[in-house]
């Protein structure tokens, strides 16, 4: 996950590597996702999140669509 100046720079990075474009987040979305994901990481009781908890985090941030779908078991 990289930071870019603009959409044009994302497109150039993808073309240069012959990779499809993925999901683009604003800084605000990225920060909220980081906070939801990592803010409890130094808590002694921190544990891995359940699949359901992860879905709630993504849904709350409106991160939906094929990119955000979990791997099929």
């Amino acid at each position, binding site marked *: 996950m990289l930071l870019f100046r603009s959409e044009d720079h994302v497109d150039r990075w993808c073309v240069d590597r012959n990779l499809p474009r993925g999901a683009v987040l604003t*800084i605000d979305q990225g*920060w909220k996702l980081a906070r939801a994901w990592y803010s409890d990481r130094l808590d002694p009781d921190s544990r891995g999140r359940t699949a359901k908890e992860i879905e709630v985090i993504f849904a709350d941030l409106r991160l939906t669509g094929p990119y955000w779908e979990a791997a099929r078991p």
Partner: protein
Amino acid sequence: MPETSEALDGRVRLTVFERLLETGQAPSFEEAARALGVDPEKIAVSYQRLAGQHRLVLKPGTTEILMANPLSAVPTAFTVEVRGRSHFGNCIWDSLGVIAMLGNSGRVLTSCGDGCGEAMTVRIEHGVPVDGRGIIHFQVPRARWWDDIVFT
């Protein structure tokens, strides 16, 4: 009563974080064993278990820690400054995660991902991004993040 593997893993994880935050270096399993007063073999197994749970990333075929997400145990293009100290994040998401983990203020120093050379800084103050320049690109679809977490 013997310590459960879950309880041991919790202590190991915190020891790894403490060492990484303090020195920038991840402890070997022997160092973590000494710090915790536990048989080194148990710590090596704990490292493997935590890697299996995606709580740590080990260098392939070793028990050497590469990542304790959101922290990187090796230098990266993402320097995170929080409370006057510098750390390395694995990517922009993790770098913001380092700020979130340590408080609510700090900054990430990196450059535009396409190699154009523009230095970029993301600042968070009191839980709010203060300059919204830049966008974050997640290329690898979520379902494949852990296929090659270093590339992801």
